[in-house]
Structure formats: C-alpha cells, structure tokens
C-alpha cells in the first residue's frame, strides 16, 4: 500500500525547480497547463502557436525559477504574467494581416464569453466572470483589448475611436473596479 501523498505547495515546487528537479517541473506543468494553455490560445487563437509558446514558458520557468520571489506575489501570478508576456510577444511578432484577422475573429467571443462551468478552478473563474460582467462595457472592452490582444492605450483609443485621455481613465477605473469586486476573494486565487 502506498503512503498518502502530501500536496506540495507551488512555492515549494518552484524552489525544487530552481534546484533542477525535473519532476517538480512536470508537477507544475500538470497543475497549470489548462489555465496557461487556455490563456495562450485566447491570445493567439491558434493551438499550434499556443503549444509552442507554452513550451517556451515552461523552459523559461526551468531557467528562471530561482528569480521567483514569494514576497512579491503568488506563483499563479508569476506564471500567468510570464505566459501572457510570452504570448503577447508572439502575437506582436505575427504579420499585421494575420493579426487583424485574428483580432477580428476573436472579438465576438469576448462579447459573449459565458461562465461555462468547467472542472478547472470553476469557482475562481466564476468570480472573475461575474466581476467582469458587472463592469460597464466601456471599461471592460479596453481591459480585454489590453490583456488578450496586447494593445497599448493609444492603439485601444484608435480602435474604439475614443480620446486617449478617456481610455486612460476607463482602464484605470476598470481595473480598480475589478480589484474592488474581486475583493478579499482574490486571495483565494492562490493556486
């Protein structure tokens, strides 16, 4: 009979990865692959590109795990920020025509994104989806365009045909409101 396994925390996993423990990397991959791959597919709208970037992300985790500082944030945030940054870099490297086509085909899905229950972090996802639904569209759209399409404030202003100052205000207000709505529960994102 096997002894009952003790769940290792994400922080411990990252410390083990920093010591070049590849089983820890495999465990971290198993925990986060669905979230990170879903995020990358949403950004890139391509499984192939997303799988390629996902590999780069975990190779970067392998090389940079020692840089993770638990006093500055949670492993979830570190991983998501790393993955999104890589995804946006790849998106920006794509040809302009391709990018237009991708952005064009993705927008309707953003507008109609529903809170489909799934097996992964459904509670946290539901919380975020609910919070986003409570944001006015004029605040939500700039946030989504920045986060998933990697657009800058000026690009968002041009796309939405709104003054830059207005977009700056809406983005700050939107993210502030999101933080407020997520409130204390945001701590429960801790994966």
């Amino acid at each position, binding site marked *: 009979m096997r002894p009952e396994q003790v769940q290792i925390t994400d922080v411990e996993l990252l410390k083990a990865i920093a010591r070049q423990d590849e*089983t820890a990397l495999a465990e971290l991959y198993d925990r986060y692959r669905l979230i990170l791959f879903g995020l990358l597919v949403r950004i890139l709208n391509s499984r192939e590109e997303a799988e390629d970037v996902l590999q780069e992300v975990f190779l970067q985790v392998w090389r940079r795990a020692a840089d993770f500082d638990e006093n500055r944030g949670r492993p979830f945030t570190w991983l998501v920020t790393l993955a999104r940054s890589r995804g946006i870099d790849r998106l920006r490297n794509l040809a302009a025509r391709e990018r237009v086509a991708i952005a064009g085909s993705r927008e309707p899905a953003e507008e109609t994104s529903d809170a489909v229950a799934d097996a992964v972090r459904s509670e946290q996802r539901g919380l975020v989806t609910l919070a986003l639904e409570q944001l006015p569209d004029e605040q939500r759209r700039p946030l989504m365009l920045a986060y998933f399409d990697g657009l800058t404030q000026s690009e968002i202003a041009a796309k939405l045909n709104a003054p830059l100052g207005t977009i*700056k205000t809406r983005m700050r207000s939107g993210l502030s409101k999101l933080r407020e709505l997520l409130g204390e529960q945001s701590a429960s994102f801790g994966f």
Partner: protein
Amino acid sequence: MSHDDFKQMIPVRALSALDADDDRSLTEHLSSCAECRRDLDEWQETAAGLSLSANPMEPSPGVRDQILRRVRETKTDVTTANVLPFAQTKRNVWSSFGSLGAIAAAILFVGLLVYLVLLWKENQAIRTELSSLRAQVQKSQTELEEKNRMVRMLEQPGMKFMELKGMPIAPQAIAKFAYDSSGHAMIMTKGLPAAPVGKQYQLWFIVPGKAPMPGKSFSTDNEGKAVMEEQMPAEAMNSAVIAITLEKQGGVTKPEGAMYLSSRS
C-alpha cells in the same frame, strides 16, 4: 513627472498597455521607488485574474514530453560541460585491497550498486507509465467536459441544430453546429484530415448575395476532432450556410482554400 503621475500609470503598466514613452519613464522611476514597485506587484495580482476569464484548454499530450525532453537536454549539456575527466593511472588492482574482507566488501558494494540501478530503472518505467496514464485521463476529462457543454447547450429552449457533411475532399468528415437565439454557437467536428504545417481550418458563414463572413480558425486533434464556441454574425442567423475551409494559420478574411465541410446538402 511627479510620483503621483507615476502611480496613475501603474495599473495600466500591469496590463502592459502603456505607450512606449510612458513605459520608459515609469521603468526609470520604478528603479528608485519601492512604494511603486509594491503597487505594481499588487496590480499585477489583479491583472492576472483576467486570465481566468479564458476557457481552460488541454494542450496535446506530446507537449509535456517535449518540455521534459528539452529540459533533460539542457541538463545533459550542463553536466557534460562541467565534468572533468578522471586521470587514468595504471596500478595493480589486487594491491588496492589489503585483504579478502576488502574484496568481499567490494563485491557487496558492486552488487548493491547494480541493485540500485535496477530499482532506479523500474522507478523510471513506473513514472513514465503513470505520466502517460495521467495524460490519457486528462484528455478524456477534457473531451467529457466538451461533450457536457454541448449537451447543456442543446438542452436550452429554442436551440437550432445543423449538420455539416464532408465534401469530396474529406468524405469521412462530419460536424454538428448548434446555436441559440442570441447567436451563441458551438461546433464539434470529427474526421477532418490533419492540417498541414502552417494551415488551420476556418469557419465561415455564407449568406446569399453577401461576401462569406469569417469565423474562428481552429486545429484538430489526431482524430480530426475539435470543439469551438463562436458568436454568429446577426446576418447569418436565419439563412446562412455554415462551411469549413482549410486556410493559412491564423485565418483569412476571404476564403482561399478548399472547402472540407458544408451545411448545404
């Protein structure tokens, strides 16, 4: 620019949406302001929450193996680079052992080493098998979730349903397309041939008298299966033909490639 001006920029920096000039100024300020660095860390926590609004998706099982293979290659390279060869010296082996007891101890030691190697190999085999089984379970769970989502959609009142049939280029391919009164749609494909490198399948809405309207691009698994949600254009709600073509990766705005599936009988 004042400290307060920089503080205003931090939430937008957490979304990496600052324009280049602002971004450079803030980076410079952050190097000397611990308070703003803490602020940025906190805003990044909030921004990271947005990732949860994307649907979780299962990458191909091979991705995990590929990552671990590349990591092992890295380790091998490092190990090879750091290993110093032992100096070989000729010596009388028997003179190294002072007694029969030492010989027996050496034999025991070698035996123990062999035993440990065998145990290690067995452990590796079990780990590999476990990893493979885990990947299979995860794939099955994802498929089940996708089917459940489709079933839930179909159970909603007012759902409409269409079947797409394979064109002569892919007679074995088939797809089911369901959508509700708001145009929220879901498509499930099966039997599509593997797309060549640099290509993806793309959904189209074709309304008589209008240019075909592009939908999302997608890839399939090794059985030609894919599940995707889409928002139908309002003009396509009543009389559109739904079609799938093979296009350049990332999609195109006008169909260029061959049609593989169509709802037109």
